[in-house]
């Protein structure tokens, strides 16, 4: 119950504990001060009363003692009667005792002489005025005793000892204590209850806000609803709503900008491709034209014509290969956009190439993250990318080696690494491997378009492709693609 009301490390528990402790402490100190002050007043009042009683009685007591000593009129026992009367008239009086200078009991309403600290040896009191003290007299409860020495000049006649019950005073003090304690507890409790309620409302508002933050979906049309409020919490709510709107606006702008970049990149890629195509195809065409020119000059030389025809065939074949590759890239101008599992794409590519790898004794290791999120894009094109990368790796290795394909989910992106232990890429070639028609392979073996086309595809998917190599330590190509939920 307590744990539910006051979870041990909540803000509310801490505030309530600290406030409760402080209030209690302050209230306690204040009420003790009041109590002790009041106690002092009450006790002083009691003593004043006792002094008044003892002084009133002492007049007659002294008269009687003097009369007795001088054998004057008032007879034996008159003081006794007077004491009895006095006790009757003052119900709080417990006893009145008169002792003479020798400490002998002269008269008293109490049967026995009460033991008091000053009657030990029947000596005189050191001071002239009444002396009071409180005493716990066992069964008879607390008693305020007051003693007054009876004197004329330096002549000491005896003492009057008056006992007044003090239990009523203690009861009064106990009542005051309980009242103040009750007040402390009640006020502290009330303040804590008020504080608890206020904190509860505040924290509930904060929880509402946190809930709204969790529900915030920039893709959706509306923002989460929060109750309108006029206080500081309301201000917080409003600012949260405004922040949500700003976020959605900048997201829209971001998407627009990316669309533009995408267009520009595609145009640039197309331009680069066109220039390369023009250049590459121009070479064989020039060769063919030279051959035709040579044949025209001497059409009769059959041997030479046959040789030129062969060369023309070779040149045209080369042009056809280029065109064929370009057609493959251009076959789908608009890539499909659908969620797909990259691991599946990699796996199917690896299957297709497994025969080739076995033949060349190249080991192909797949290290695919099982929890890979989906990416959006064209399955066919992305498979082409990995096919290119793997073929390049196999080509670079030639015989005997290993290729590792790794897929990972990193920062809302999927990262696929194709690493091999082949000869690697020369340092000066590294910036150019993605250029169209850059190849180190023998003429007729590679067109130099593979990486260029792959770059185009990856960028069209909003991703990146990088090449890394340590000379002699193999090469690695890293493809990163945004995951589906971001795009």
């Amino acid at each position, binding site marked *: 119950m307590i744990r539910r009301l006051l979870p*041990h*490390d909540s803000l509310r*528990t801490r505030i309530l*504990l600290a406030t409760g*402790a402080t209030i*209690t402490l302050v209230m*306690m100190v204040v009420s*003790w001060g009041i*109590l*002790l002050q009041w*106690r002092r007043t009450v*006790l002083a009042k009691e*003593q004043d009363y006792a002094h008044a009683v003892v002084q009133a009685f002492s*007049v007659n007591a*002294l*008269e009687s003692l*003097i*009369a007795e000593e*001088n054998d*004057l*009129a008032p007879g034996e026992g008159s003081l006794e009667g007077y004491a009895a009367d006095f006790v009757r008239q003052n119900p709080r009086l417990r006893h009145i005792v008169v002792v003479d*200078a020798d400490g002998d009991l002269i008269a008293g309403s109490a049967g026995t002489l009460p033991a*008091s*600290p*000053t*009657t*030990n*040896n*029947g*000596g*005189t*009191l*050191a*001071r002239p005025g009444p*002396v*009071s*003290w*409180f*005493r*716990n007299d066992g069964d008879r409860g*607390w008693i*305020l005793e007051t*003693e007054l020495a009876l004197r*004329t*000049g*330096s*002549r*000491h006649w005896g003492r009057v000892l008056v006992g007044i019950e*003090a239990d009523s*005073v*203690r009861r009064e*003090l*106990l009542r005051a*204590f309980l009242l103040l*304690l009750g007040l402390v507890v009640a006020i502290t409790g009330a303040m804590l209850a008020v504080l608890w309620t206020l904190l509860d409302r505040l924290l509930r508002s904060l929880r509402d806000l946190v809930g709204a933050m969790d529900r915030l979906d920039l893709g959706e049309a509306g923002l989460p609803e929060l109750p309108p409020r006029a206080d500081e919490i309301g201000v917080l709510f409003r600012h949260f709503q405004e922040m949500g709107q700003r976020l959605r606006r900048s997201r829209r702008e971001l998407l627009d900008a990316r669309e533009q970049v995408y267009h520009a990149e595609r145009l640039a890629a197309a331009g680069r491709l066109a220039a390369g195509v023009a250049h590459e195809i121009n070479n064989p065409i020039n060769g063919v034209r030279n051959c035709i020119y040579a044949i025209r000059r001497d059409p009769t030389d059959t041997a030479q014509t046959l040789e030129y025809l062969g060369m023309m065939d070779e040149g045209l074949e080369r042009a056809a290969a280029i065109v064929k590759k370009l057609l493959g890239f251009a076959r789908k101008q608009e890539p499909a956009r659908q969620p797909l599992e990259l691991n599946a794409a990699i796996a199917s590519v690896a299957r297709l190439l497994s025969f080739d790898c076995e033949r060349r004794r190249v080991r192909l290791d797949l290290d695919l993250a099982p929890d890979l999120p989906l990416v959006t894009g064209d399955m066919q094109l992305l498979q082409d990318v990995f096919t290119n990368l793997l073929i390049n790796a196999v080509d670079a290795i030639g015989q005997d080696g290993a290729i590792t394909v790794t897929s990972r989910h990193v920062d809302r992106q999927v990262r696929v690494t194709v690493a091999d232990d082949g000869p690697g890429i020369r340092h000066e070639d590294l910036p150019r491997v993605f250029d169209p028609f850059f190849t180190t392979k023998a003429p007729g073996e590679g067109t130099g378009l593979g990486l260029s086309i792959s770059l185009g595809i990856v960028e069209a998917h909003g991703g990146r492709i990088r090449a890394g190599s340590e000379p002699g330590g193999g090469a690695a190509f890293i493809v990163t693609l945004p995951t589906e939920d971001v795009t």
Partner: protein
Amino acid sequence: MRQPRLWLALAGVAAFIGLNLLVLVRVLDLGPPQPPRKAETENDDTRPVVRVGVISRYAPRLTYDAYQPVMDYLNAAGTHRYELKLSTSYEDAAAQLERGDVSASFFGAWIYARVGPALGLVPVLAPRDGDGVATARAVLITATGSGIGSVADLRGRAVALASRNSYAANWFLSECLPGAGLLVADLDSVHHYSHHQTVVYRVRDGHHDAGVVKEDVAQRFDDGSIRIVARSDPYPGPPLVVRGDDDSPALAELIALLLALDPAEPAAARLLAGWDNEFNRGFARVDAATYAQARLLAGEVTP
């Protein structure tokens, strides 16, 4: 995190309860606010006792208040223990002297003059004034606007007097009134009060037309509310009397100690300042002759 905070809360509650219990115990223990001082033992005075008699006209306590300081002085200065012995009448006082219960006794001037010589009592000391014995006068007073101009005007008037045994009252009755040719029967009424002061008050507020008091008492009312109509001859103050045949050393010490008080000495002056008005200038030696005039007036009783 959770354990320390729980312990903290428990410690707080325990401290709250503990502190409150402490305060409760402290509040309810009335204890001695200041421990009563240990009683001092009175040294039992085992010296031989010398008793001095006083005829107490007022409440015995007031008599003690007036005479006890004199005893305190004697106790401190002498080799005996001096104690007061009160009596209610001069007969008692004389009997006490006769029996030897008291060594000396303070008598009123008039009562001594009247009965002392017949009882064989001798005056030895009286209050002092300068070099000689202090003398007093009795005065007849009336309220300022009463219209009483002389003693003769008292015919049919109410008169307030001091005590029956006072010199003032007896001077009025046996000298003043007869001197003006009046008898007590010519007065409307005569009333005796034990205090001279009461007489003045009663005259001033109109209960009586005139009153007779000692002059020094009348002089204390210098606010113009009373007027003096007649004045007696001076008479000596109240004597300390002894038996004529008592020549004990205790009595000699008593007399010597009282005569030794000289107000010119600062120490004695300080002591006397706390004593009753009547004898705060010390004592002077007197004898029967000092009271000759008074004995005439008092109508001395012969044995």
